[in-house]
C-alpha cells in the first residue's frame, strides 16, 4: 500500500505541475515575440518553453515528491490513497499513455510514408555533407527525413526545376534543420500534448523555418535563390499532408518567408540580436543552488502538500 500510495502521489504531483506549467506556457509564449531576437533564438526559446512543463514536472516529482515521501512518510501509517489522488494518478497514467501513443503513431505513420517515398530512390551527388536521395517525381519536392541519420529527399521534379544555386541554398536550409535536430523536436512535442499548445507548436515551426532560412543565406543573391526555390517548389507540393517526423522545405507561411528574403540585407542580419545559450546557465545555477540550500524545508513543504492531497 505504501508503494502504491507513493506512486499515486508522485503521479498526482506530476500531472498537477504539468498542467500548471503547460497552462502558463500556453498563455505566455506570445510575449517572446517582444524580444525582437534572431529567429534561431526565438525558435530555441519557444522550444524551451514548449518542453518546460514536461521537464519541470519530471524534475519536481523526482527531486522533491518522491524523496519527501520516502523520507518523511511513516511506513507504518495505515492511510488510504484518497479519491483525488487516485483519480489524478489515473489521469497522469492516461496522459503518459496518450503521449506515448502519439509518439508511436507518428513514428509508424512516418516510417510507412517515408518507405513509400524511398521506393526507387537513388543516391544523388550534390557535394552536400548530408546523404541526399533522388526520389520519384510524385513525392514531396524536398524533405528532411530521419532523426539519427537524417537524409534529404529530393524529388525528380525538384531536381528538374531548380537551378544549381537554388538547389545549393535549399540544401543549406535543410542542413540548418539537421543541425537544430528539428525532426526530433517535433517528436518531443507529440509526447507532451496539452490544449492550447498547438499554437505554440505552429509558432515554433514557423520560427524554425525562418531560422533555417537565415542560416542558409549569407548574401542577397542567396536570399533571392532561396526565394526562387521556395516559389518553384511550392508549385510541386502534393496535396497529401507530410508526416509528423519530417521537415518539408515548403512549410510555414511562404508569403512571409519570401517577403523576408526579398527584404534581406546584411545590415538586417547584424541588427538581429542572437541570445547566447550560456545566458541560461546563471538562472539555472541559481535555481539549483536555491533548491540545494532550501532542500530540507522544501521536502517538508512538499510532504505537507502530499498529506493534504491524500486526505
Amino acid at each position, binding site marked *: 500500500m505504501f508503494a502504491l500510495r507513493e506512486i499515486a502521489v508522485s503521479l498526482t504531483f506530476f500531472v498537477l505541475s504539468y498542467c500548471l506549467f503547460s497552462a502558463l506556457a500556453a498563455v505566455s509564449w506570445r510575449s517572446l515575440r517582444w524580444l525582437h531576437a534572431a529567429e534561431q533564438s526565438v525558435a530555441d526559446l519557444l522550444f524551451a518553453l514548449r518542453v518546460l512543463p514536461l521537464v519541470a514536472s519530471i524534475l519536481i516529482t523526482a527531486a522533491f515528491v518522491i524523496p519527501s515521501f520516502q523520507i518523511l512518510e511513516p511506513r507504518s501509517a495505515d492511510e488510504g490513497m484518497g479519491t483525488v489522488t487516485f483519480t489524478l494518478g489515473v489521469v497522469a497514467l492516461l496522459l503518459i499513455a496518450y503521449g506515448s501513443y502519439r509518439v508511436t503513431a507518428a513514428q509508424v505513420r512516418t516510417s510507412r510514408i517515408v518507405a513509400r517515398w524511398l521506393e526507387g530512390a537513388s543516391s544523388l551527388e550534390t*557535394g552536400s555533407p548530408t546523404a541526399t536521395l*533522388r526520389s520519384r517525381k510524385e513525392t514531396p519536392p524536398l524533405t528532411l527525413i530521419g532523426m539519427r541519420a537524417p537524409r534529404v529527399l529530393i524529388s525528380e521534379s525538384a531536381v528538374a526545376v531548380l537551378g*544549381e*544555386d537554388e*538547389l545549393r541554398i535549399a540544401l543549406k536550409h535543410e542542413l540548418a534543420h539537421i543541425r537544430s535536430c528539428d525532426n526530433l523536436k517535433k517528436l518531443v512535442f507529440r509526447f507532451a500534448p496539452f490544449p492550447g499548445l498547438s499554437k505554440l507548436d505552429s509558432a515554433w515551426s514557423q520560427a524554425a523555418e525562418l531560422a533555417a532560412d537565415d542560416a542558409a543565406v549569407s*548574401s542577397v543573391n*542567396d536570399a*533571392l535563390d532561396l526565394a526562387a526555390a521556395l516559389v518553384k517548389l*511550392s508549385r510541386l507540393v502534393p496535396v497529401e499532408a507530410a508526416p509528423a517526423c519530417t521537415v518539408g522545405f515548403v512549410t510555414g507561411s*511562404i508569403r512571409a518567408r519570401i517577403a523576408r528574403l526579398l527584404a534581406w540585407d546584411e545590415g538586417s542580419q547584424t541588427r538581429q540580436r542572437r541570445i547566447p545559450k550560456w545566458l541560461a546557465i546563471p538562472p539555472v545555477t541559481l535555481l539549483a543552488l536555491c533548491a540545494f540550500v532550501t532542500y530540507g524545508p522544501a521536502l517538508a513543504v512538499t510532504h505537507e502538500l502530499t498529506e493534504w492531497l491524500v486526505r
Partner: protein
Amino acid sequence: MTTRFSIFASSPTPQLGPFEQQLLRELWSRGSATVREMVDGTGIRQAYTTVMTTMDRLYKKGLLDRIAEGRAFRYTPRLTSEELQRGVAMDGIRQLLGSNDTSALPLSYLVEALSAHDAQLLDELQILIERKRRELKANGTPEPAQEARSEFRGEFRGKERR
C-alpha cells in the same frame, strides 16, 4: 450565388443584419458602451429603443456580454472581429464538407479556388523575385562566390537530368 447563400444560411454562427454589424463595429472600436453612449457618442442615427432592442438581440445571440451599470447595461463584445470572422469561415467550410448529397462537388470547387489563388500568388511572388534580380543586376551586385558554388560542382545536373 443562390447555392452559396443557401449553404451558409443554416450556419450555426449567428446571422447578422446590417444594423447589428454596425453596432458590433462600434463596440469593437470603443471596447464597451451603454445604449445611451452608443446613441449619443457615435454616428448611429437610430432611436434609443431601436439600439436597445438590437443590442439586447446581440446579447441573446451570445455576441455581447453585459453588466448592470446603474439602471442600464454596459455591453462588451464577447468575440474580437477576427474571432467572429474565423467562426463564420469555419462554419462555412464545415457546412461545405458536411453537406450530404454533393459533398465532393463543393469541396472540389474549394480546392480549385484555393489552387487558382495559390498559383496567382506564386506568380506574383515570382515576378517580385525577378524584379529584384533585375535591380541587383542593374546596380552591379556581384554573383555568388565561386567557392560556394563549387560545393556542388554542378555535377548532379549533368548526372541526374535526362
